[in-house]
């Protein structure tokens, strides 16, 4: 197959496409790729415009509307954030929070996946678990935060338990739907060709469940973040939530906002860069060029 070479746009488009295991063969595909790139560019422009707009409002309000100690200007926050980063506080406290989330959410995922698959495959188990999963999901996370703090005090275990209990129902509920919708036509096909169970799981079940798993991770993880920081606000002695509480107690709006913004930035990074990459990698088979 002839590899198209030409202007910059075509080259990088072709490169991106190679990664996905295809090469743009026809003019039509080429055009579609260029269109996609243009589309991505305008989306970025709009996104940047959003940032300029909202930070502009912030700057305007802090200059003309409210006192600086209530709403410090963006530049002050930026300086405070820089201090937090250079002093090493960022690494210490993000590390502490992340560790809890990593352990807690991993456990939540394993438990949730197990229960979800059980519920999806068998209606007796569904009857057994469904109300309890629903109850856990509708209960505000704050309640588990308070309970786990009362039970485990300031220890390391409390936040993890809270994360597990609030996180696993989201994983379970999403997987139930996925398992129930299992593609019978494909599993039957595999069966008629005597494909082994391991191969069936790896090449049919997991790719099919992937969208459900990613949704589960998205929801579950965002809940885990909230709950983990909340436990630190209430009863921690380290972590992002703990630092927010300290800034709150000394009524330092600048410090508080800096931690909050660093938190947003990190959550955004995880969601948009880390998770999205995995999702793109997993779904590269989806036809992008529709004719």
């Amino acid at each position, binding site marked *: *197959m002839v590899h198209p070479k030409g202007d910059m746009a075509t080259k990088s488009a072709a490169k991106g496409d190679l990664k996905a*295991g*295809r090469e743009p063969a026809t003019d039509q595909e080429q055009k579609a790729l260029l269109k996609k790139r243009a589309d991505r560019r305008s989306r970025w422009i709009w996104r940047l415009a959003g940032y300029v707009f909202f930070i502009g409002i912030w700057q305007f309000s802090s200059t003309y509307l409210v006192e600086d100690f209530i709403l410090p200007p963006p530049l002050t926050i930026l300086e405070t954030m820089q201090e937090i980063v250079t002093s090493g506080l960022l690494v210490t406290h993000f590390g502490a929070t992340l560790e809890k989330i990593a352990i807690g959410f991993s456990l939540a995922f394993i438990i949730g996946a197990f229960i979800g698959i059980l519920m999806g495959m068998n209606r007796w188990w569904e009857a057994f678990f469904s109300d309890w999963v629903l109850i856990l999901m509708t209960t505000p996370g704050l309640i588990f935060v308070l309970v786990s703090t009362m039970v485990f005090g300031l220890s390391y275990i409390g936040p993890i338990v809270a994360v597990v209990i609030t996180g696993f129902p989201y994983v379970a509920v999403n997987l139930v739907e996925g398992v129930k919708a299992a593609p019978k*036509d*494909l599993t*039957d*096909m*595999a*069966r*008629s*060709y*005597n*494909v082994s169970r391991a*191969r069936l799981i790896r*090449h*049919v079940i997991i*790719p*099919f469940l*992937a969208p459900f798993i990613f949704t589960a991770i998205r929801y579950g993880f965002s809940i885990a973040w909230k709950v983990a920081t909340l436990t630190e606000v209430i009863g921690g002695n380290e972590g992002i939530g703990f630092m927010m509480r300290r800034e709150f107690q000394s009524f330092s709006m600048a410090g508080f906002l800096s931690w909050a913004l660093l938190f947003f930035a990190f959550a955004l990074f995880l969601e948009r860069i880390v998770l999205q990459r995995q999702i793109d990698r997993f*779904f590269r*088979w*989806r*036809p992008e*060029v529709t004719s």
Partner: protein
Amino acid sequence: MASIKVQSLRKEFVTSDSTVVALENASFEASGHVFVSIVGPSGCGKSTLLNILSGIETPTSGIAEITEGDKKARNGYVFQAARLLPWRTVMDNLLFVQKDRDAETRERCQRYLEMVDLGHTANKYPGQLSGGMQQRVGIARAFSIEPDVLLMDEPFSHLDAITGRSLRKELHHIWMETRKTVLFVTHDVGEAVELSNRMVIFGQGGRLREDMKIDLPFPRDPADDAVALTKANVLRTFEELDLVAS
């Protein structure tokens, strides 16, 4: 030589409020280099028979087996829809049903892809192919395991007339070349006359109503007088048997 044996086969589907009998006392045999078409009205259990023969369904009672010599035969199954894994490339779809994944197997898969004129699509995803091309991948997949028997369940019914026609030609060609036993389920009498040298008509519950030889020379053009006449005769038999849905 592969042989298919179905004897007093019964299959019931039990739902929450009723029992449906799909096959009742179905019996039928075939072996060697034959192309057997099974025709019959919808709901006569012809697809169920293929599903049982391929191991997807288990019979309620009776015998349904395909043997090669004295061991179980390998079956290639072509479905009504292509049933490809959308998240795997064409080549990986073929490899998915293979026992091994060595270089030799890869080469064989590539060869069968080329047989259906799709050698260049090995690294594409099914979603990038047309419906007819996907169906050809399904056919290549069935042949790529070098089966003893080929089971086909209305493989061309979802395609437009022109694509269907060229695929039928292709299938006939491959059948002549590979000399497999083919069991071809269809509700299209014209298609059955064009392709097969034996035609079996099923009534409700998979009861054998008619078993006929079609002794016309290949290749068969549907516009040819002899072929058209045979088709008309079969349709008349259908009416006499009172199988046409009222």
